[in-house]
């Protein structure tokens, strides 16, 4: 069984900011039913590109739920530029760490956030170099190689 920190458990059992957000002007979606994990992120962004509210809906394990909940807490009050620098490590750190097998659950948060920001700014996410290996999380083989290098 996973060794979840108290913070992870708390965010899983009492997730913050659940549900669709009325008046959201940016939405990011990642994952799918077939993968067993999916996250939909709703943002309300003001004219200064400040995130005034954020909510989520998640289908996934406890880490996925907790990561989504944590993400909304982290980014509320940030500008889009600040938020765009958030990585899955920030989410994991906020939660006091995730089991290594569960790090990918926090990647979903990072990915949904990127898509939401792109959605707000009305830009297509650029084609990335490399071969797409994971549609849901928008991951290429080159990124995996980079990640393995960075983690070792």
């Amino acid at each position, binding site marked *: 069984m996973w060794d979840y920190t108290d913070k992870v458990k708390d965010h899983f059992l009492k997730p913050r900011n659940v549900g669709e957000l009325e008046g959201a002007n940016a939405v990011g979606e990642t994952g799918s*039913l077939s993968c*067993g*994990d*999916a996250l939909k992120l709703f943002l309300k962004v003001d004219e200064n590109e400040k995130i005034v509210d954020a909510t989520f809906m*998640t*289908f996934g*394990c*406890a880490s996925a*739920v907790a990561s989504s909940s944590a993400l909304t807490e982290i980014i509320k009050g940030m500008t889009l530029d600040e938020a765009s620098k958030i990585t899955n490590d920030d989410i994991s750190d906020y939660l006091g760490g995730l089991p290594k097998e569960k790090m990918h659950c926090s990647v979903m948060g990072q990915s949904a956030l990127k898509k939401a920001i792109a959605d707000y700014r009305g830009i297509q996410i650029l084609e990335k170099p490399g071969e797409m290996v994971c549609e849901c999380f928008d991951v290429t083989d080159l990124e995996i190689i980079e990640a393995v290098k960075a983690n070792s």
Partner: protein
Amino acid sequence: MRIVYTDNNATTKVADEVIEEMLPYFGQFYGNPSSMHTFGDQVDKKIKQARQRVANFINADPNEIIFTSCGTESDNCAIYSALNAFPEKKHIITSNVEHPAINKLYQHLQKKKGYEVTFVPVDKKGLLNLDLLYDSLSDNTAIVSLMWANNETGVLFPIEDIAKKVNKKGILFHTDAVQAGGKVPIDVKQVGVDMLSLSGHKIHAPKGIGVLYVKKGVKFSPFLIGGHQEEGRRGGTENTVSIIGLGRACELATEHLPVMNTRVRELRDYLQTRLLEKIPCSSVNGDLDLRLPNTLSIGFDAVEGESILLLLDREGICASSGSACTSGSLDPSHVLMAMEVPFKSAHGSIRFSLSHYNTKDEMDIIVSALVPAIEKLREMSPFWKDGKVV
């Protein structure tokens, strides 16, 4: 907190009667059964008794019983023995819903040892495609191995019919009866299998003890090579305490078999009915009739299994998603995938597996905990809206 234990297909409580039978053999009668002294010999006698009890349990002869260290060893041993018996035959058959002890071994034999493997598929109810099975039998087939009962869904394969057909072609037949033991009657003489695996910890004996039944006359070659134990068929000092416990557990399992098929089955059915009634978009995995009396695999659309389990765990309820052995992995269960259970419910499938220790009261506790848990998870699921899957 009160524990509601409904994970008996993963492992069971060691029965008090079994503990009592075992205890003196740790610190008091600890001799080696092979020794040339009365002190060791009394343990040997006790092991003979245990062997007889295990034999009685499945209507075998005592010398057809080989004690192993677990169901996995029994499975591995059976397959390797067959391959050694027929070194020229390079084709082996199994289903696509076996336990990893068979499934992973077959994959290994396919990838590393040049064997041609047929994984006979099951249908949506988890029932075996018998036509494909029989069509795949050939002169080149060394062994067919099929589980008696599936650990995740409880679905039963028609082992007796299959054994007859496979034997008629002169092909060895092994069945993994680890989940069948203690839940349905097993009579090896009637069923006519060549080899059969059991595991102690599924029938209220300790973990780490197994049985391989090998029919008299079936050519056998040992898997663990060492001393003369088990008549030279399995080296290693006997796990005396657990063997003695297993003997007692087999007696108890025979006693409890009627209960399993009445009271336990009723509890299972009660739980099933209540959950289907109270939780919309839920569905049972596997054939409703050809199924172990203690097992309920049930899927809840648009939610994910681990989250359900953790919410149940907070209420002291022990259940599982997929098999315990694969819970380290993040993939959906290969059994449910093989049955083409739709993704929307496969990911949210939970297995409840009961024993005669369970009570009706406990079933009510499960229902009371599960209904709000699923509701809560659906509230945050992006695939659930207005009471249905989107």
